[in-house]
């Protein structure tokens, strides 16, 4: 065994460059002769483009080119696409409005891309953009999802009636209606899942570069999935064939979903580099991130839970309106459907579920996957309902949950998912203990004495990661397969390069993936290099999102390692004149069991490459690849318990305790997994306590367009967390992993809001529960409380 194998708290390999300022992010890259792009954006939520006069801008100092949608169209450059087809319940395909990279005819949200100026310096490009004369004929805007279908609502795409993207449903409506008819108790909630702006701290950036001699393009971009970007830019947008387009995603400063998508800016930069004849670089400013990164969440939901006399859940009915913004972003259509409603069974045995989802266009930025993507919304619905039901029935919320837990696996829910394994009671028990649930009443009394309100809230979340068998997602409308690829190259001298289709933008793959290899062969971790993020190096990859790098990405590596191991054993057995079944690998040595005959790993690899003495018929070399297609989704689950104290004078709330007990299956590096949980909770609390994307309902102006207006969680807003793991190994993949990247963001909003509603004694608290919202709630609640 090595101390760098599975389960070891290895200090990250990648940190050396980041802590010394030697990271290599897209904006850190400077190519010879590079020019700078600036995007002119729409100041209006909705307007007809009368004309765009670029003459003055073209004459400005340093300007090399000014491009509009007409130029893209002239070159046959296609629009941006949405890669997941959803069908409405009447069988009709979703309505996907056109999404040109630079606007044609109309602009549809504030920040929509109107023109691109390329100049010698960034400042010159920005200055020149002010000289472009655009004839905007302003039109009324529709901003809120709830209004999008009403008569007279402004249409985002003229040809799409009622702003309807799709009207989708899942589950058995009749069975669910029957459950509600027979229910002993029904709990109802109206829930708004607030819109968020992702805000990775590195703004998006891109450098397009055309090599005329080779007739080939290179695009450096802040992407979570460079191969998917290449595929889309090539096959759908038509920049160049795949073999003439290289996409490099170097160090990327956080993504959280927002860097999955293929955006207008990178498309225009790579295309324009041929026209300019020099590299074209664009680095987003933060205000552009606010305006034009795909946003997250934005659901309006009516939800009902039916229970029998014994407190058993018998049915769940959910109606959701999902705001998709002005255009369908890359994977947007899947988020409020298959990533959301398929998780509505939560951790519970629910015999009947029906959900309908109306997705609508509005004059706002596109909405797509953001950390958790659909699953936080589902968890929020289920866990708010269950908590509210417990309160109405005067049952302990832990007890009501326990009564309804799924305890037998595999478990088929009424909404597609087949849970493979889990132990929800174990994580609940552990969390109750760590949170000192038994002592809560005392603590509440102490708070009351001090004039404070104290509340406790649970979130027993489940999510589905590692999506999923490619054929299964294909049948649900996905335009791609969701497998992953890996290549393991053992060099003659015995060091190893692993080329992975996963992409690390903070997740620590260079360490975790190396641990998997170190564990297998007992090799020191500095002998192992992880390579990712370059379509010229890595054979193919689907990238990193949906907590898939562990369960899918590492499974691909594990499969390739199986092949390496088998071949290495054959070579050693041949050289040592033994049977390959007797070869054991330990501490970097292959030895014949029960003898002192052995070869170092490096001797075996050298033997593979010098090829002087290989088994009959064996090809030289020691390099293997794998394309791993998952057998099932994975189902991370756990229990988060949040305790808050509120000062009723000011509405300010403080998180006094946060316990997270998660079941992620096998854990490779606990440091890294805990870090993922911390960060996820941070973002989830951000959503629940502070962050609200707000558009002016009339003008469609983004009111929260900077860090002065959009409240990001800071260190003083968050507590230290108490973490523990309960483990059921995932049976669906060779590494036993379930994925950990999103759990915190999924559980946290429900746990926090359940604590807040407990403290405030009403379900009627908006999210985010800012001090102002809390204070208002308290003012409204005061007379009622006094009357009691």
């Amino acid at each position, binding site marked *: 065994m090595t101390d760098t194998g599975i389960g070891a708290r290895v200090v990250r390999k990648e940190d050396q460059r980041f802590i*010394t*300022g030697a990271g290599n992010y897209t904006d850190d890259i*400077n190519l010879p002769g590079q020019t700078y792009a600036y995007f002119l954006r729409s100041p209006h939520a909705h307007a007809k483009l009368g004309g765009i006069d670029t003459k003055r801008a073209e004459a400005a100092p340093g300007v090399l080119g000014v491009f509009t949608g007409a130029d893209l169209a002239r070159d046959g450059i296609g629009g941006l696409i949405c890669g997941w087809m959803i069908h409405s319940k009447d069988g009709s395909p979703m309505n996907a409005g056109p999404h040109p990279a630079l606007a044609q005819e109309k602009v549809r949200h504030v920040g929509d891309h109107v023109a691109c100026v390329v100049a010698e310096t960034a400042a010159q490009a920005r200055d020149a953009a002010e000289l472009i004369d655009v004839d905007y004929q302003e039109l009324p805007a529709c901003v809120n999802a709830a209004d999008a279908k009403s008569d007279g609502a402004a249409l985002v795409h003229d040809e799409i009636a009622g702003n309807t993207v799709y009207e989708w449903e899942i589950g058995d409506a009749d069975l669910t209606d029957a459950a509600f008819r027979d229910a002993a108790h029904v709990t109802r909630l109206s829930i708004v899942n607030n819109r968020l702006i992702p805000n990775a701290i*590195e703004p998006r950036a891109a450098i397009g570069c055309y090599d005329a001699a080779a007739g080939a393009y290179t695009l450096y971009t802040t992407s979570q999935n460079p191969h998917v970007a290449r595929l889309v830019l090539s096959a759908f947008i038509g920049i160049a064939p795949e073999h003439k387009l290289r996409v490099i995603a170097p160090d990327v400063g*956080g993504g959280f979903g927002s860097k999955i998508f293929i955006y207008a800016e990178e498309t225009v930069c790579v295309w324009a580099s041929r026209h300019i004849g020099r590299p074209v670089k664009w680095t987003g400013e933060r205000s552009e991130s606010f305006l034009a990164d795909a946003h997250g969440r934005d659901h309006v939901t009516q939800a009902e839970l039916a229970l029998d006399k014994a407190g058993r859940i018998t049915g769940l009915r959910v109606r959701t309106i999902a705001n998709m913004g002005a255009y369908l972003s890359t994977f947007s259509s899947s988020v409020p459907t298959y990533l959301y409603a398929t998780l509505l069974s939560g951790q519970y045995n629910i015999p009947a579920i029906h959900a309908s989802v109306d997705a609508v266009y509005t004059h706002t930025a596109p909405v797509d996957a953001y950390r958790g993507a659909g699953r936080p919304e589902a968890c929020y619905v289920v866990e708010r309902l269950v908590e509210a039901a417990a309160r109405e029935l005067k049952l302990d919320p832990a007890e009501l949950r326990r009564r309804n837990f799924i305890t037998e696996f595999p478990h088929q829910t009424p909404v597609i998912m087949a849970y493979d394994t889990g132990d929800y009671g174990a994580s609940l028990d552990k969390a109750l203990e760590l949170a000192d649930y038994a002592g809560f009443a005392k603590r509440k009394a102490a708070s009351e004495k001090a004039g404070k309100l104290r509340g406790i809230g649970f979130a027993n979340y489940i999510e589905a990661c590692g999506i999923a068998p490619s054929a299964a997602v294909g049948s649900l409308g996905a335009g791609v397969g969701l497998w992953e690829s890996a290549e393991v190259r053992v060099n003659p001298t015995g060091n190893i390069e692993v080329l992975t289709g996963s992409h690390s933008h903070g997740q620590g793959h260079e360490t975790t993936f190396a641990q998997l290899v170190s564990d297998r062969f007992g090799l020191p971790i500095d002998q192992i290099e992880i390579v990712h993020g370059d379509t010229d190096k890595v054979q193919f990859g689907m990238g990193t999102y949906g907590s898939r790098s562990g369960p899918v990405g590492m499974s691909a590596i594990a499969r390739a390692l199986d092949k390496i191991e088998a071949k290495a054993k054959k070579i050693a057995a041949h050289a040592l004149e033994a049977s390959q079944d007797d070869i054991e690998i330990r501490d970097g040595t292959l030895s014949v069991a029960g003898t002192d005959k052995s070869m170092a790993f490096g001797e075996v690899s050298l033997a593979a490459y010098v090829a002087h003495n290989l088994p009959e018929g064996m090809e030289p070399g020691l390099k293997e690849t794998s394309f791993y297609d998952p057998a099932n989704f994975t189902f991370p689950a756990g229990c988060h318990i949040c305790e808050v104290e509120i000062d009723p004078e000011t509405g300010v709330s403080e998180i006094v305790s946060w316990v997270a007990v998660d079941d992620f299956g096998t854990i490779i590096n606990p440091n890294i997994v805990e870090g993922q949980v911390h*960060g996820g909770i941070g973002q989830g609390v951000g959503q629940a306590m502070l962050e609200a994307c707000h558009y002016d309902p009339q003008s469609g102006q983004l009111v929260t367009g*900077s860090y002065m207006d959009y409240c*990001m969680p800071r*260190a003083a807003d968050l507590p230290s967390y108490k973490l523990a793991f309960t483990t059921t190994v995932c049976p669906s993949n060779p590494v036993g992993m379930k994925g950990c990247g999103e759990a915190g963001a999924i559980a946290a909003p429900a746990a926090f809001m359940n604590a807040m509603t407990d403290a405030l004694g009403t379900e009627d608290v908006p999210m985010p529960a800012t001090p102002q919202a809390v204070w208002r709630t308290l003012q409204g609640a005061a007379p009622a409380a006094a009357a009691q």
Partner: protein
Amino acid sequence: MPTVSMTVNGKSVSGNVEGRTLLVEFLRRNLRLTGTHVGCDTSQCGACVVHLDGKAVKACTTLALQCEGGDVVTIEGLAANGELHPMQQAFRDNHALQCGFCTPGMVMAAVDLVNRNGKLDEATIRAELEGNLCRCTGYHNIVKAIAAGAKAMS
């Protein structure tokens, strides 16, 4: 274009800049010191923190010309003789970074806050980090690392 001269990480440097050129642009574009990052346009995120004459400043809110004759230390200049600064080491040991984008600013701000405060409790560290955003870590390990770094610096 006026010329500006200053000391950066112990070396004398000078360059031609516009009046509007920010210190962070001078560092990143003229000197190719890309360890100092830009995460916002409203002086909120702290990704750009460097030390100017021994004090933490936001390089996105400082004009290059303001630094004439100044002594600037960036993340690239923090490690001495190939040895990590104790705060860098503490960030690494405590897994206080994920994507690493906020990290240079965090480390520079952390060194400054230890210099100013000496001994630090958790509440002080959290309050003092007001000017630095991290989207990845939930701050838990950053707070731990700064406490450990402060100890190692004393």
